[in-house]
């Protein structure tokens, strides 16, 4: 694949620079750390700060979710690589409005370690930090070992709901409990049709043969649970719905939010082709779709494929999901 770049080593800095220029009404770069993107209105005095962070290459995640009633500060890592402990710390400092900071991030070894170290350093500054670790990716571990699962696009719901809760003036404990409830209500699955390439490496990290697909693929090309012959969109959609809902015992009549995200190189129209079938399958199971998001919300460079996330709602989560936000990602 041909691509737009200058020096591969500068891609992350140039991405952040372009992003902040384009969305200067919403975000700015932290003056003390060029790898921290801060919402224009942050920190809000007396409000719990919301922080996230992760590797680059997933745009609009993570920076695209910095904004009003969303994430206050985002730590930016190299492509597919956790941000530094220092960047998480600087994001925590930037988001701190005196009411504590909730770091809502995905379950990856590097992020776990760096957030832990940043939390320890922030404690020395007197900042109260609590965390929620997203683990919505069904195929990355069995249900009995949910704590081992990766965090994927369900993180967006966790930020949205956690951010709205904080904006209401909730305490740190309440924000954490609500964000935890949001991610506990999420199940996701990814299907990959083609690999992606780190520009500095220059060749794909893995291969998916023509005519094949990888069910359960991760956001960095982590191999899925099944390598199969590529099927029709309807069959793939059925499979995705089955995987997420079989993992999540939801009673008929439950309202859900649905997010279908492209992985980078899949055309948006194909996402709608998938969504057409996904929604009818969800409805066929007796569930009601309260709100749907279809587009490139959480990508993996130019991977071909899509993810499905289903969030089980209750009155509280539904109200928070519907709170108006201003960020580049939605």
């Amino acid at each position, binding site marked *: 694949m041909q691509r737009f770049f200058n020096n591969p080593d500068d891609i992350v800095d140039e991405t952040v620079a372009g992003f902040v220029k384009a969305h200067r009404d919403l975000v700015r770069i932290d003056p003390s750390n060029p790898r921290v993107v801060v919402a224009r209105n942050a920190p809000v005095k007396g409000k719990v700060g919301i922080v996230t962070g992760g590797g680059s290459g997933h745009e609009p995640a993570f920076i695209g979710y910095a904004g009003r009633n969303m994430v206050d500060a985002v730590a930016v890592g*190299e492509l597919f690589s956790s941000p530094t402990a220092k960047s998480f710390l600087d994001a925590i400092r930037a988001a701190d409005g005196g009411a504590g900071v909730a770091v809502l991030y995905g379950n990856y070894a590097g992020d776990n370690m760096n957030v832990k170290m940043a939390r320890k350093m922030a404690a020395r500054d007197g900042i109260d930090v609590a965390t929620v670790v997203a683990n919505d990716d069904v195929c990355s571990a069995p249900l009995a070992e949910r704590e081992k699962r*990766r965090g994927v696009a369900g993180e967006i719901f966790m930020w949205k709901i956690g951010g709205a809760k904080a904006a209401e003036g909730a305490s740190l404990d309440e924000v954490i409990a609500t964000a935890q409830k949001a991610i506990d209500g999420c199940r996701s699955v990814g299907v990959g049709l083609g690999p992606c390439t780190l520009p500095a490496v220059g060749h794909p990290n893995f291969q998916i043969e023509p005519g094949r697909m990888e069910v359960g693929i991760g956001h960095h090309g982590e191999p899925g649970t099944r390598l199969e012959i590529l099927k029709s969109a309807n069959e793939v959609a059925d499979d995705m719905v089955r995987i997420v809902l079989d993992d999540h015992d939801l009673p008929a009549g439950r309202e859900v939010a649905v997010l279908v995200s492209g992985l980078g190189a899949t055309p948006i129209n194909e996402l709608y082709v998938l969504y057409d079938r996904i929604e009818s399958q969800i409805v066929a199971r007796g569930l009601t779709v309260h709100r749907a998001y279809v587009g490139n919300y959480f990508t993996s460079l130019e991977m071909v494929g899509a993810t499905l996330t289903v969030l089980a709602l209750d009155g509280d989560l539904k109200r928070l999901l519907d709170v108006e936000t201003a960020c580049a990602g939605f």
Partner: protein
Amino acid sequence: MQAIDTPFLLLFFRAVARRLEENREALCGLDGEIGDGDHGTSMANGFAAVVSTLRDIDAAKEPPSAVLRKASVAFLSDVGATVGPLYASALLQASRAFDDRPDLSLSELSTFILALADGIAVRGKAQAGDKTMLDAWLAAAHAARAQEALGARPGHVALKAAEAAEAEARATATMIASRGRAALLKERSLGHQDPGAVSAAIILRTLSDVVSDLAEQAP
């Protein structure tokens, strides 16, 4: 220079940075097989950051403990991934091994290696056999200990430590990952070497080369 002192550390870090730069793509490739493909970048950038941080220090004034602490901070500030905190912790633990001493004797090489291994173990909480960089570090520390107990010369101790790390890095291909991103693959991680163990073996081979160069120059 017949000791692990500040000039030794500066030489060692420069050599490690060079070797890791040469192996950047190979390590990324290994990582791409079972991880996310960033290991070579993290390692090469991390030690480049160490070298750049230490570029202007006054070797006559800075004790090795301070040099290692600065190297640790460089890792923490410049490297994310798992590598940042793990090597930051390793370097910090190594700085503690010196206390306020101006150097460690080359006959205490195993103390230096073990301190680095300990720092990684404390931060990463991996066990031997989990298919991580710790496997290579522990193998090297044990080999160095054993050779020192036998009264081997520093050059031989370092060589055996490097060989043990390389053998263990190869052996990680027979292990099932239970830490880090490769752990998600379980059995599918079989047959692939752990990139962290391979880069650890590169660092230990570099240490061996630096030590034996010094031994040759000795009167």
